[in-house]
């Protein structure tokens, strides 16, 4: 049966049942049966749903199709039903064919003998009648002459009666005889009247075409007919043999012999009955056999399917029952072996993970207890440093300071290893991000004062609520804000909050040294420092952003960076509003409005530029380049314009292919940087769907890949960039790039329409990332 389309009701819904359908409708069972017939006749045509014609027709089709759907579904899903039905149909065909052949042969055999006997009987009769007529004509030749008063007429009539009586007398009801005269009337006394023995009605019993044949030919002809009696007997099948003969006076008449065939018919119907019964039995038995045989095969298959389903649902201890040594048993054994191996592997992995977690926990404990003692001792010494000589006092200070660093490093390491072991758990509850931001900003104020910068919070006039783990979000934001203050060169730091669509975002903008091209990705690498010489003085473990990225990832959110050399940077945390909702975009564009690029665009009268380009490309080029300016960690690819401006462009592959090449190598080299093309901001819906922000990071209608590719194509000298991204790939690999494998960028790509290739690379990278980790 053809598959139903959307119009189908669910299986088992009322109304889809045939019985149900007939009931309420006035049409009744008759119509239903007719319809079913019509369906069978029209077959798949109707059911294919190919009727595009009038709505009435479509309605009719639907109405006709509906009751059949459950059956069709059963047919599709049940191999046993299919095999049994096929067997039944085919054996029915065979039995029917066989029956017809056998019955034909039996009939021929029965009739042949009868016909032969009848023919010889009739021949004899015809001869006798001829002889009799010949004899009578010699007798009555004179007689007729002597009686010219009409006697001969009388005589002929009597003679005919006599003839019929004589001929039929030998039949003993095995046959009957009748005479007919062409054009004979109904007058019984006339010579021309029909005569018959045994009450046969000759006029009705003799078929017209036989009479015609007899009239045309001289010989005898025969035909099957129904013998009809005028005296009230039931008609019966019979053979009629007739011949035109000359009677008295040379009058021609037709003589017919009727041989009833009811005996033969009885025999034949007996044979038919027997065959039908036998055939029915054979068909039913074959069906039953097919059912049993298929069951033998299907039952284990169904069992295997059921167990496979349970296995995949996580019940790894499920096994098939194996009996015997046949193919089914082999299937079962193979299946069980597979399940065994799966279980083993999964257990090994689980054990490994447990061991890792255990190890981390033990190390943590074993390290922390002595560290606590050292820490306390150091503090006691530190407290008493005024009593020491300057060298010892300074030593005490150094000891205390470095213990702080050691502690935070240890804490960060443990946190990272917790992420790596998959032991980090999210405790999400609805929180107002403004509260978190307030706390974080409050905590960072002293540092900001020391640095001479102010922290401004924008967008906190309305609640920004999301389901999140307050502890983690606070950790992420503290990290971002402290980083911004430390790298902000004493300029203001702006914390921007926004909520739109299914996402909330916090962006932290600074106007410090910014990020060099390529660094937007690298900032999230473990132990990476923008400027090693500088960073040592500001402390920090080098793990902060890695942990922040992991925290964001744990929420199903993104953490991305944008920056331009000398123009500051912006870090954006985007979280889904509800914990299990995938992110489609961020309410805040990654590249801030006041970036150098955006200012340039505005100065160049953005509207005109926009008019010049179709919206799609306009946005694309923009995002491409935007990516470029140093944005989002996964990118690297599209840093177009700025890379030329800031000029780290190096040896570059030819521009056209640069992009692809860079990506390729990136993928090959390191999981992380493969993110190359996957710039989240370049994705559709990023800006436009969530927040209508014009083109600022408007949906490009393309994937990140194309977006940044566009950027590349548009801006001269992007190659430097691509090359750099590849370069970066190696570096990322060195520094343990696995976290890059989860960068938000790829996440987004994976969701992006048309992002299939990107999604693919995500997969690759994920696996690679894992490999790197392992």
């Amino acid at each position, binding site marked *: 049966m053809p598959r139903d389309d959307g119009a189908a009701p669910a299986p088992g819904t009322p109304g889809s049942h045939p019985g149900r359908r007939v009931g309420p409708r006035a049409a009744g069972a008759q119509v239903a049966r007719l319809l079913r017939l019509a369906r069978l006749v029209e077959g798949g045509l109707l059911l294919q749903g190919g009727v595009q014609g009038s709505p009435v027709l479509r309605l009719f089709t639907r109405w006709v199709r509906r009751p059949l759907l459950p059956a069709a579904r059963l047919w599709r899903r049940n191999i046993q039903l299919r095999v049994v039905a096929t067997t039944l149909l085919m054996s029915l065909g065979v039995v029917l064919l066989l029956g017809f052949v056998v019955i034909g042969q039996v009939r021929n055999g029965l009739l042949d003998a009868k016909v032969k006997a009848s023919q010889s009987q009739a021949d004899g009769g015809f001869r006798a009648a001829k002889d009799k007529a010949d004899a009578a004509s010699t007798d009555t030749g004179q007689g007729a002459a002597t009686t010219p008063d009409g006697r001969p007429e009388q005589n002929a009539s009597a003679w005919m009666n006599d003839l019929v009586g004589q001929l039929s007398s030998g039949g003993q009801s095995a046959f009957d005889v009748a005479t007919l005269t062409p054009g004979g009337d109904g007058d019984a006394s006339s010579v021309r009247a029909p005569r018959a023995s045994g009450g046969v009605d000759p006029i009705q019993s003799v078929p017209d075409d036989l009479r015609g044949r007899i009239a045309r030919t001289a010989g005898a002809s025969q035909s099957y007919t129904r013998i009809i009696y005028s005296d009230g007997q039931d008609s019966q099948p019979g053979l009629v043999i007739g011949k035109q003969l000359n009677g008295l006076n040379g009058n021609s008449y037709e003589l017919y012999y009727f041989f009833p065939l009811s005996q033969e018919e009885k025999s034949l119907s007996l044979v038919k009955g027997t065959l039908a019964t036998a055939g029915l039995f054979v068909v039913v038995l074959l069906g039953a056999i097919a059912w049993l045989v298929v069951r033998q095969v299907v039952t284990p298959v169904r069992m295997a399917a059921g167990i496979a389903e349970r296995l995949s649902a996580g019940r790894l201890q499920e096994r098939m029952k194996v009996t015997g040594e046949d193919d089914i048993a082999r299937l079962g054994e193979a299946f069980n072996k597979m399940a065994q191996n799966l279980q083993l592997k999964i257990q090994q992995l689980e054990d490994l993970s447990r061991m890792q977690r255990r190890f981390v926990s033990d190390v*943590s404990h074993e390290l922390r*207890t*002595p560290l*606590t003692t050292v*820490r*306390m001792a150091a503090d*006691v010494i530190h407290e008493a440093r005024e009593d020491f000589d300057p060298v010892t006092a300074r030593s005490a200070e150094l000891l205390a300071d470095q213990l702080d660093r050691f502690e935070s490093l240890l804490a960060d390491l443990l946190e990272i290893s917790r992420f790596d072991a998959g*032991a980090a758990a999210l405790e999400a509850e609805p929180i107002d991000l403004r509260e978190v931001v307030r706390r974080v900003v409050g905590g960072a104020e002293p540092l900001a004062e020391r640095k001479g910068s102010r922290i401004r919070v924008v967008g906190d006039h309305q609640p920004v609520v999301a389901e999140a783990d*307050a*502890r983690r979000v606070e950790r992420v934001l503290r990290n971002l804000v402290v980083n911004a203050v430390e790298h902000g060169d004493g300029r203001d730091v702006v914390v921007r909050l926004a909520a739109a669509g299914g996402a909330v975002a916090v962006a932290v903008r600074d106007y410090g040294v910014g990020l060099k091209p390529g660094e937007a990705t690298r900032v999230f690498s473990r132990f990476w420092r923008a400027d090693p010489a500088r960073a040592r003085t500001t402390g920090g473990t080098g793990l902060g952003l890695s942990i922040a990225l992991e925290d964001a990832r744990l929420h199903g959110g993104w953490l991305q960076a944008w920056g331009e050399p000398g123009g500051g940077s912006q870090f954006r945390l985007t979280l889904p509003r509800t914990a299990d909702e995938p992110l489609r975009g961020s309410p805040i564009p990654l590249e801030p409005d006041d970036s150098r690029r955006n200012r340039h665009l505005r100065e160049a009268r953005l509207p005109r530029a926009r008019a010049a380009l179709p919206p799609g490309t306009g946005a694309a080029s923009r995002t491409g380049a935007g990516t470029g300016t140093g944005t989002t960690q996964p990118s690297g690819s599209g840093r177009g314009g700025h890379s030329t401006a800031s000029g780290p462009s190096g040896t570059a592959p030819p521009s056209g292919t640069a992009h692809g090449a860079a990506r390729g190598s990136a993928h090959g080299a390191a999981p992380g940087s493969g993110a190359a093309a996957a710039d989240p901001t370049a994705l559709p819906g990023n800006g436009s769907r969530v927040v209508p922000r014009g083109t600022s990071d408007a949906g490009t209608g393309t994937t990140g890949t194309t977006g940044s590719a566009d950027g590349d194509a548009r801006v001269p000298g992007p190659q430097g960039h691509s090359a750099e991204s590849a370069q970066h790939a190696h570096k990322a690999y060195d520094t343990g790039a696995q976290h890059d494998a989860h960068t938000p960028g790829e996440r987004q790509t994976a969701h992006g329409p048309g992002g299939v290739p990107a999604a693919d690379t995500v997969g690759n990278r994920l696996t690679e990332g894992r490999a790197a980790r392992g």
Partner: protein
Amino acid sequence: MKGRVLVVDDDTALAEMLGIVLRGEGFEPSFVADGDKALAAFREAKPDLVLLDLMLPGRDGIEVCRLIRAESGVPIVMLTAKSDTVDVVVGLESGADDYIVKPFKPKELVARIRARLRRSEEPAPEQLAIGDLVIDVAGHSVKREGQAIALTPLEFDLLVALARKPWQVFTREVLLEQVWGYRHAADTRLVNVHVQRLRSKVEKDPERPEIVVTVRGVGYKAGPS
């Protein structure tokens, strides 16, 4: 106010260091290194506060905590090397009032200890009502229809904090500050666990709390009386 502190820790170096710090702050520390002996030591020393390491030979810290809590409401501060949620929550659920994660600074530890001991200062006589409960702050008793309900000092403080301002919704951070004495927001799990424990004692149906009501997304408040 100076108090007796029982330190239950198997690491002798840490215990000694703790002793130095505590004595420096004017406390009277006593020590026990074995979980099995902890309860006996507790009965003998009658401390005002217990510092309890979670990982102990013999009985582990959780078990010791449960035993002490079974016979006394004395403040218990856990020392733990594990900041994983499960470990912390299990510790808190076994009856600890507060926890401090190793490695900690001596000042931090002392602040926590003082915060736990602070409440022993004489409170003003005060009668509060929350739900169908009557709280005698000075008498440190909570009664429902004349029936006294036994609460630990911390649970009592928590209940009193809520009952004093029934109109106010307390965020977890505010409760941490008021009840635990944290300056800066610490771990809100502390609040969650203790609210659960308080509810299990004072609510008729802890599944549908009427006395300590959750305000989703914000915190807790006292139920209508």
